């Protein structure tokens, strides 16, 4: 489904991605761990061509993303959902308009079908009552849910999540993580999740990679990672493990 080959990206000589390569299979949930500033979000943005990598290849559904013309790229983007860190809801539009926006622009649907999809995704994120609210009237957790609803409304085959639980309290984080996995099972999507949150990863991940200094330093299941002997990996997960009395939840 997704193939990243030897991806390099730097900003003003500062290397952020230094030869990243990995694959994600269809319907698999891959979690990307790493400290802040290690280029996890940059990786997602390169996959969507919001940023151009310096070198390397990105293949999604067999298409070479970096070589696509704008028209082909936009066609591919319609099959990919992206949940931004801050949800990125359009401030000037109500929740309903936010959800309708990608449908009206990209799909030839009548109003009845659009309404059905809007209601379906709002029910899925348990926020049907917020349909006519403005983003400024929503809490952080609600914004994330609406952002998630907007990402899945086009029924994407691939979902990219940029820190889906950052800035949320532990209970809301868990709710969002559970919601992500439920939707994943329901819609049979492939997911790549960038996060620091071990609990979120534990709920979501089939497989995980850890990035440090622009390179993948470990790859495997969450259990493989938390029992790793590598000093960096041990250090990375130690705080989370202490919080949970020495074992992951």
């Amino acid at each position, binding site marked *: 489904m997704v193939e990243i080959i030897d991806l390099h990206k730097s900003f003003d000589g500062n290397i952020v991605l230094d030869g990243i390569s990995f694959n994600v299979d269809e319907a698999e949930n891959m979690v990307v761990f790493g400290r802040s500033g290690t280029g996890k979000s940059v990786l997602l*943005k390169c996959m*969507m061509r*919001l940023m151009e990598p310096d070198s390397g290849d990105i293949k999604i559904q067999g298409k070479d993303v970096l070589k696509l013309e704008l028209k082909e790229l*936009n*066609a591919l*983007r*319609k099959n*990919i959902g*992206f949940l*931004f*860190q*801050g949800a*990125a*809801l*359009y*401030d000037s539009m109500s929740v309903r308009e936010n959800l309708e*926006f*990608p449908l009206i*622009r*990209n799909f030839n649907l009548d109003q009845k079908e659009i309404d059905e999809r809007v209601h379906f995704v709002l029910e899925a994120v348990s926020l049907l009552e917020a349909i006519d609210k403005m983003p400024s009237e929503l809490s952080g957790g609600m914004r994330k849910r609406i952002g998630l609803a907007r990402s899945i409304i*086009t029924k994407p085959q691939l979902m990219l999540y940029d820190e889906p639980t950052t800035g949320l309290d532990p209970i809301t984080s868990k709710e969002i993580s559970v919601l992500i996995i439920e939707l994943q099972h329901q819609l049979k999507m492939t997911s790549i999740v960038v996060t620091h949150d071990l609990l979120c990863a534990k709920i979501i991940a089939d497989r995980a990679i850890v990035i440090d200094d622009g390179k993948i330093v470990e790859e495997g299941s969450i259990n493989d990672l938390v029992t790793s002997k590598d000093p960096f990996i041990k250090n990375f997960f130690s705080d989370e493990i202490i919080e949970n009395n020495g074992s992951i939840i």
Partner: protein
Amino acid sequence: MNNLLTSGKLFSKTEKTLTNFFEMLGGLTSFSVRFFKEVFLPPYEVEQIRKHMIELGMKTLPIVGVTGFIIGLVIAMQLSPVLKRFGAEAFLPGSVGISIVRELGPVICALIFAGRVSSGIGAELGSMRVTEQIDAMEVSGVNPFRYLVVTRIFATTFILPILTVYVIFISLIGAYIAVVLVQNMTWAYYLDRVIFAVEFGDAIPGVSKTFVFGFIVGLVGCYKGYTTENGTEGVGKASTSAVVVSSLLILIFDMVLVKLSLWIWPVVK
């Protein structure tokens, strides 16, 4: 040694300022080229253009109206004693009319419009950029340049001439009030003198150049907002520099367009 250090710093500061200036000019040029490429391509966002025209027009209408009224009043009050000195009081309505229609109405209106609208667009698009709303639009397969930029530049280009005609009319009313204070003149006679003095060659270039000014206001506001960096601090900078750059460009282009209009419609009787 100190002098060397100071001149070195001054040189590097000047170099940086010049680099930024030319970068901005290059950016504005490529932004306007992209606008002309995209403006003719479907889908045509007619609803968005209509919405922006109404929104921007209504937002600016009161302030340009008040300013126009005061400018008309003050110009007539200033010109009256000067013309009296030369025994030419009868030319007051005509002189005021020509000044307002040819220069003051369009330029004052454009400068107020730049202050109100360019900063607003810069801040709005800037905050959309830093909160990743523009990226969200792009990943959903929508062209944000066409949806956000083309519609706004189109709206500012066509709403400013309408506002200018309104300002000219309000300024003439302001000037009439000043004229009535010093001379016993009816509205009909005043208007007749203004219409007699103001020719086609005065009105057309006056209003036409506001299409260019409107384009500048939209272009600079959108460019500054769309290319915002460095979070909320960048939004503030985008908004402020949008006003400064668009006002400066309006005055520079005014110089060029006045020369051009005098060449096309020479003021000779």
